[in-house]
C-alpha cells in the first residue's frame, strides 16, 4: 500500500506529513493521520456516513479547514471517520462523503486531544504527481 502519512516531531505540538496522488487523496490521508494522533484509528469502522462541504480561498486553507471541520464534528457530534470520497471543484469547493462512527473511548482508545490544525509553515507541494504537506497540530 502506498504511504499515507508519517508522524513528525515538533517541540510543543505534533505534526504529520501527508501524501496523496491528488489533492483529494492528500486531504483523506491528512485526516487519517490526524485521527491516528488522537485514537487507535485502525479501530474506526464505517457504520454511518456524513457529507461535509467547504469553500475556501486556496488549497492550503482548504486543507486546514477540512481538518478543523473534522475536529468540530468530533467535538459536537462525537464522530470519527475512516473512509472519504472527496470531490474538489475549482481547487476550492469541496464535497466529502465521510464514513465512520461515533467515538467510543473503550474501543478507540484515547491517545491525545488535538486542539486544531495550524497554518504553521504549511505548503502543499506537488512533485511528479505526488502531493505532500506537513501539518503542525496544536495539542
Amino acid at each position, binding site marked *: 500500500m502506498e504511504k499515507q502519512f508519517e*508522524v*513528525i*516531531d*515538533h*517541540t*510543543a*505540538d*505534533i505534526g504529520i506529513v501527508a501524501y496523496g496522488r491528488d489533492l483529494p487523496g492528500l486531504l483523506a490521508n491528512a485526516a487519517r493521520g490526524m485521527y491516528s494522533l*488522537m*485514537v487507535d484509528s485502525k479501530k474506526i469502522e464505517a457504520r454511518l456516513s456524513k457529507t461535509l462541504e467547504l469553500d*475556501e*480561498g486556496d488549497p*492550503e*486553507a482548504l486543507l486546514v*479547514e477540512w481538518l*478543523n471541520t473534522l*475536529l*468540530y464534528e*468530533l*467535538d*459536537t457530534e*462525537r464522530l470519527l471517520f475512516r473512509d472519504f470520497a472527496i470531490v474538489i471543484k475549482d481547487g476550492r469547493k469541496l464535497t466529502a462523503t465521510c464514513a465512520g462512527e461515533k*467515538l467510543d*473511548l473503550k474501543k478507540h482508545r*484515547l*491517545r*491525545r*486531544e488535538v*486542539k*486544531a490544525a*495550524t*497554518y*504553521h*509553515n*504549511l505548503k502543499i507541494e506537488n512533485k511528479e504527481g505526488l502531493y505532500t504537506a506537513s501539518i*503542525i497540530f*496544536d*495539542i
Partner: protein
Amino acid sequence: MSPWQGKLKQIGSCRWEIPQDYKAGMKVPGLVYADERMLAVIKEEQSLEQVANVAFLPGIVGRSMAMPDIHWGYGFPIGGVAATRVQDGVISPGGVGYDINCGVRLLRTNLNEQEIEPKIHELINHLFKNVPSGLGSEGKIKLSEKDMEEVLSQGAAWAVKHGFGSKEDLEVTEENGCMQAADPDKVGDRARKRGAPQLGTLGSGNHFLEVQVVREIYDKQSAALMGITFVGQVLLLIHTGSRGLGHQVCDDYLRTMGEAVRKYGIALPDRQLACAPVESQEGRDYLAAMACAANYAWANRLCIAHWARESFVKVLGKSIDRVGLEQVYDVAHNIAKLEEHEVEGKRQKLCVHRKGATRAFPSGRKGVPEKYQPIGQPVLIPGDMGRCSFVAVGTEKAMQETFGSTCHGAGRLQSRGEAKRSLRGSDVAAALAARGIYVKADSMGSLAEEAPSAYKDVTDVVGVTQQAGISRKVAMAVPIGVIKG
C-alpha cells in the same frame, strides 16, 4: 531539525538581542530572556526565528520578546510577548493561540500535608470522577443558548450566579473574570456548539489539576497576603482554558485575518501570523470574540474549582470552612489586551499579546486587585508534574521592560514524539509514585508526553525572571497528586 544560526547579542544580565538588521522586514529588534545554558537549548530549534518573524507585525513597539520558557510554537513562539500600537498597529489571533485564555487558578487550603497524605489516592480518584477530563470530555453542565450568551458576556460572574463560586473568587481573578470588550454576536454558531457541552471540563494535553504542598516561602509578607502561611500547607492548582469554543474562535478569525492581510496589504513571513489593524472592523470583531472565549475560560476554571471544593469536603469529611480552598488568584497566559504603557517616554495605548506569558503588574497599577495592591499582582508559574510550581509577583521592572509580563511555565524541552519514544506512561506514573506523587491520567500516552524530563526545569526559568527582575518569587510548592487530561 537544524539549529538556529541567527544573530544574537548579549545586552545585559540574562538578556539577548536579535538585532533588527537580522532579517529585512523586522520593525523592532528581538529580545530573549535566558541564561547561557538555556540559550544553547533554545537555539537547537527555530523558536528564535519566530521571535524575529513576530517583529514584522505592523505597529509593533519596543521589542519582540521571548520569556525564558520559550519554545517553538506555530506563528508566535510559546513564551512570546509583543505589543502593538492600537492607533496604527495590528492584532493577531496567532499571538493569542487556539486555547484563548488558557490559564491557571490557584486555591489555598487550611490543611497541612499530614492531614491529606493518607487520603490523597481517594481524593485524586474522586476529583478525577468529579471533574470531566480527556478527549472530547463533556461536562455536567449543558448550556442553553441563553446561558451561553451570558457565559460569553459575563464570564466567571455567570458561574457565581449559578452557585459555582463566590464574589470573593471574582475579586482575585484577572479582569475579575470578565473582559468587558466581549460581544457574543461576534462568536459564531460553530464555536457556541463546541462550547455548549464542554463548560466545566479540563480537556487534555498539558492541562491538569494538581494538589500541591508548599515547600518554600521566599517572601513571608507577600505570601501571607495570599493566604500562604506555612511550609507543608496544601494548595490546589487548576490549568485549563476555553476548550473547543476558544479553538473555534481562533480558527474562525484566522480565516477572517487571512483575508484582512490581503485587504490591508500586510507582508508577513508566516501565514500563522495573520492579523488585521486593531482599529479595523476585523480587528475589533476578533477582540470582542476573543474576550468572549476568555470569559468562557474564566467560567470554566471557576466551575472546576467548585467541584474540586466539593470533592475535598466529601473525601476529607471536613467543612468547607475547615478545608479553606479560597482562591489566591487566576491568571491568563494566552491573551491579547488593550493596556496603557510608557513607550519612549510617552504613554501609549497598546495591544499586548501574551502567548504563553503571564501578566506581571506591580503594586499601584490599575488591574491589580485591591487586596494585592501592597505587593503587586500574583503570578502563577506551574512546572512539570514531577518538579515544582512557583508563586511570584509582578514588578516595576516588568512594567519598564516587558509591558508588565513574565514567564508562564517550564517550557518544553523534548518533543512529544521523543518523550513518548523514550518513556512509557506507566513507567512515568510508577517513577512519580516512588517519589510520593500520585498521578491519574485519561491516557497513558499523554502521560509519557507530559513526563517531567520532557520539560525544562521551571526552577531555572523562574531563576532567570528573578535575576532579570521581571517577576519576584514568593513561594514554591511540589505536587503530591495530579490529574492529567
